[in-house]
């Protein structure tokens, strides 16, 4: 069937214009909500434009007109079927504070990916520890940085150094910012590497584990076990779990991508990933502050016992937070997720 474009356009032009005006009005609305009457009107014009598009597509060769109608139909479609969150809901403080309960809830819901991350890190630790224990030559390979290889010198420097150039709060602030930024970047990368089907995430965790195991065993062998515990743990009890949670997010993502397209609930899954990443970023902010303002003080200034006690207290609080806070029953959570989606 040959379509007489000119006549067709002359007839349809008024209703396209009408739709255009309507769309412009709706799109400039801040909350993008439609009243039932408006929705009905939009629906009618959308259906007409869609049928016009169909006629142009099959009855003629008019690329510009077709493109115009496609744009018009696409805009109307988006306006009709998009369910935006309302402004008031978005700016409610309660909605934002929910991250503090959503994080431990999500952490528990996806606990098996956390277990996988722990397993891989522990394997790395074991390899690093065993290598250093039985093959001292491997220290040079495993611990490339000079300060890691000579614990005695490092401990001496650390303990003396704090007297020589007094730690100023300012230097610590600058240092903590860099730590926070670097750690969040690394953790984000671990979480994002899930797109490599988890291989990248696993490698990153394993490498991290090897380094951790090697440093710990090397320092302990040289008799600086207490020093290294007091040096690393006050921030490590947040830093290490947060990288494990990054691994958890990475493996969760990998599992999602391995599912068949139609089985993915992308909307729900994205929220889970995002909540995990936000949560671990908050943990890393704390870890960065601790590392700069607390961990760097050593024996004469801060007794090692106190540092270890602080670390232990932190660990207990973190464990309680991750395991106890938020709703226990996952069924309620799922219903909540559904209601969010159906909005």
């Amino acid at each position: 069937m040959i379509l007489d474009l000119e006549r067709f356009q002359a007839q349809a032009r008024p209703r396209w214009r009408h739709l255009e005006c309507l769309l412009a009005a709706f799109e400039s609305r801040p909350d993008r909500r439609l009243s039932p009457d408006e929705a009905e009107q939009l629906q009618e014009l959308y259906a007409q434009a869609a049928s016009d598009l169909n006629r142009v597509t099959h009855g003629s060769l008019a690329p510009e007109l077709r493109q115009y109608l496609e744009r018009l139909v696409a805009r109307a479609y988006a306006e009709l079927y998009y369910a935006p969150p309302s402004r008031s809901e978005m700016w409610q403080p309660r909605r934002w504070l929910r991250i503090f309960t959503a994080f431990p809830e999500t952490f528990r819901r996806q606990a098996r990916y956390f277990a996988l991350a722990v397993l891989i890190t522990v394997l790395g630790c074991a390899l690093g520890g065993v290598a250093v224990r039985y093959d001292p030559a491997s220290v040079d390979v495993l611990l490339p940085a000079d300060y890691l290889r000579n614990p005695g010198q490092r401990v001496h420097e650390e303990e003396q150094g704090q007297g020589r150039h007094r730690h100023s709060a300012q230097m610590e602030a600058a240092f903590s910012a860099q730590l926070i930024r670097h750690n969040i970047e690394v953790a984000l990368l671990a979480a994002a590497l899930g797109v490599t089907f988890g291989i990248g995430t696993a490698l990153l965790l394993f490498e991290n584990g090897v380094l951790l195991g090697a440093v710990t065993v090397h320092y302990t062998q040289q008799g600086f076990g207490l020093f290294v515990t007091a040096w690393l743990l006050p921030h490590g009890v947040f830093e290490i779990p947060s990288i494990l949670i990054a691994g958890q997010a990475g493996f969760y993502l990998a599992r999602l991508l391995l599912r068949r397209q139609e089985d993915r609930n992308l909307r729900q899954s994205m929220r889970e990933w995002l909540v995990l990443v936000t949560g671990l970023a908050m943990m890393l902010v704390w870890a960065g502050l601790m590392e700069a303002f607390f961990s760097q003080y050593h024996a004469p200034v801060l007794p090692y016992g106190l540092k270890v006690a602080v670390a232990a207290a932190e660990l207990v609080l973190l464990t309680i937070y991750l395991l106890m806070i938020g709703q226990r029953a996952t069924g309620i959570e799922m219903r909540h997720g559904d209601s969010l989606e159906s909005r």
Partner: protein
Amino acid sequence: MSETPSTRAGVVAELTIATAEGVLFRLPLAGPAARLYALLLDTVIVLGTINGLGYLVYWLFAIAPGFGFMVITLAEFAIGFAYSALLEGFWNGQTIGKRLFHLRVIDQDGLPLRIEQAWVRNLMRVLDLLPSAYLVGGISVLSSPLMQRFGDRVAGTLVIRQTPLALPGEEFWTRQKYNSFMEYPAIAMRLRRAATPELASLIQEALRRRNELAPYARREIYRELAQYLQTEISPFPDELVERLSDEQYLINSSGILFGDQPTLGYGSPRR
């Protein structure tokens, strides 16, 4: 972006959306080059903002430069992610760069993107910009049928080209009072039956774009079209054709193909 639709129709990747009501429409996907330009512009804006903020902070924290450095480092980091995520999330899927280059991020179902999607695709940037200059993201875009970088794949988003909406002009080219082809109803009928919709539209488009074509190109196109019609479809008598220019020949043909037909009372091709 100034290409004509006809040259880009076959080249450019597009997403076809089939709605629940059975409506099909295509969305043109943005190529890597346009996205790179938009990205560069956004980078300039972000760096400018951070530098401006830097001066402000150094001035405010003049007594405590260490804390100033802390604020700057963290602000720079946060702005790097939040600039795109917030703008895309709240400003119809567009950053300033994207708006200027007519790009827009949407959900891959053709709907506006949601705020979580904007955050996910921008947090995933840490992967896409590796090892440098967005190599990973670039390879991902080029190897994906929907031109998605990894952030887009995970967030279920894509970047489309959104040129301003413009309804084609409404000048009438093919209407005229007298059509000499009407004097040969049998041949005119033949033309009407043999011409495909594509051919008919081609003639109409060629006439409609008369003023967009260079004179030489127009002469050539009209000559070829008229010759094709005359030899392959509807040989009108020579004594008539000799009197007509190629353009007039096409105008007459278009009148036969689309016009009112006092010819043989054959059923109207239109509704």
